[in-house]
């Protein structure tokens, strides 16, 4: 099958910065779940935002930036509006900050549908309710009329997932979708996201700093360091990573039942900055 997304030599520079935040990364994405991991500041979120062109003021350049039949490179902001949210969408980290606090939850979900399809309000409402049920919200009618402060964090994140999947996109970018959630809720939310993505054959990019998460919920993993991809692995082989940075990240993680020796600390080598996988 042809890939959903092809990225070649993507570079991003923020306005006023003296160097690139993302320094030439390339990857392709099929109907699979791709994880992008790295520390804060490694450029992983910038990559996700660059794909959706959500970086006002920043300069984005790439030799090739192809999403299905669209060349994202030459797309105007006006054309981008018909892609963003409709064919490609993004789930953000914290539902507390990404939902509008003064609008009803359900109206915010339905808005996506109203915006991209020529339907009546009641039809959009029906779709939104069905989607809320699909993310396993027990009483969609009640939740539809609630405000963001009335729902829990886990429910808020499910609402976000519902909102982002409502227009039936082909690619979903999830930027740390569960790091604001408790561990017991985290697994439920991930399972729901995973189920929907598989069922609908959506491509998923999971941006995270959490190696356990990408190990369990992704097929393939890109490891980013200082704006570059240093290693690409299948998630099952994460333990056999070869790059010292990846190995360092794995070793730095405390594990249940692990020895209580001091944890390994990353010894950052300057030549990692120039390496490319």
């Amino acid at each position, binding site marked *: 099958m042809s890939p959903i997304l092809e990225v070649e030599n993507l570079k991003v520079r923020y306005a006023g910065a003296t160097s690139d935040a993302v320094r030439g990364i390339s990857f392709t994405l099929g109907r699979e779940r791709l994880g992008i991991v790295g*520390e*804060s500041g490694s450029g992983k979120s910038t990559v996700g935002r660059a794909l959706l062109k959500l970086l006002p003021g920043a300069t984005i350049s790439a030799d090739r930036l192809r999403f299905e039949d669209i060349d994202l490179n030459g797309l105007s902001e006006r054309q981008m509006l018909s892609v963003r949210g409709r064919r490609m969408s993004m789930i953000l980290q914290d539902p507390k900050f990404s939902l509008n606090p003064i609008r009803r939850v359900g109206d915010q979900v339905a808005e996506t549908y109203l915006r991209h399809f020529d339907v009546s309000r009641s039809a959009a409402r029906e779709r939104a309710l069905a989607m809320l049920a699909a993310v396993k919200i027990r009483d969609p009618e009640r939740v539809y009329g609630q405000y963001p402060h009335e729902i829990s*964090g886990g429910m808020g994140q499910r609402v976000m997932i519902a909102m982002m999947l409502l227009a039936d996109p082909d690619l979903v970018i999830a930027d740390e979708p569960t790091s604001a959630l*408790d*561990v*017991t*809720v*985290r*697994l439920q939310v991930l399972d729901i996201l995973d189920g929907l993505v598989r069922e609908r054959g959506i491509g998923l990019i999971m941006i995270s*700093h959490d*190696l*356990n*998460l990408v*190990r*369990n919920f992704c097929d393939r993993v890109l490891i980013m360091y200082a704006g570059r991809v240093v290693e690409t692995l299948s998630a099952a082989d994460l333990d056999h990573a070869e790059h010292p940075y990846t190995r*360092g*990240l794995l070793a*730095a*993680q*405390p*594990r*249940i*039942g*692990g020895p*209580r020796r*001091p*944890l*390994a*600390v*990353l010894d950052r080598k300057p030549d990692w900055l120039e390496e490319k996988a």
Partner: protein
Amino acid sequence: MSVSVDVRNLSITFGAGPTAVKVLPDVSFSVKPGECFGLVGESGSGKSTVLRCLSMLTDFWQGDILLDGQSVRQLPLIARCRMLQMVFQDPYGSLHPRQSVRTVLHEPLAIHGLDDREARMRRALTDVGLPVSFLDRFPHQLSGGQRQRIAIARALILEPSLLLLDEPTSALDVSVQAEILNLLQRLREERGFTYLLVTHDLAVVDHMCDRFAVMQRGEVTEILPREAIADNHASHPYARELIAASLAYEGVRPATARA
């Protein structure tokens, strides 16, 4: 120089009579001198509130909190601050952006009238593994891990014996978390601190703590030894669920899981 902590029937109630709301129904636990005791539970379960009660940042609680047998309410402010110090979750929020490291570390010394200030500040920085030249830096010139080290140095400079750690690494990357956890381990070995560590990460508990309490809706559901995590020996259903979720998330399948 380590203290024991005894928390007995700690509770917080708003209002009185039939409409009273108990936000923290009843918490009791005790920590031996030199022990590292963990408090885990989901958000809103009251783990941080317990630390705030212990440090008297929240003072409208009922019950008893004894440090080395002395009620924390009876301790004068100065003595209390010399005995316990707190490290907060977010080093981006807990350091004043317009104050240099020197100002941050100097203030407690001035309040407590301690002498030899320059040497104490240098020592505190060295203890947390930062160069002395960092005294003249401002928070925006520091990385997240360095900021948390400054927050720990600020807590150490009054030479307390009990450290209250409120999610000290949850805002940090794993690689930086490892440095901070190692630092806390080393300090405990060198100085024999008593630690009270609030976290939501059971892997951190397993790495750091001797025993831990699982909290839910303001109550301690179960107190478990660290060894109970790997095989999920918890008996309370919520504690079991929490440990099982953490194990599943780590990709570790417990050998004796009955879930």
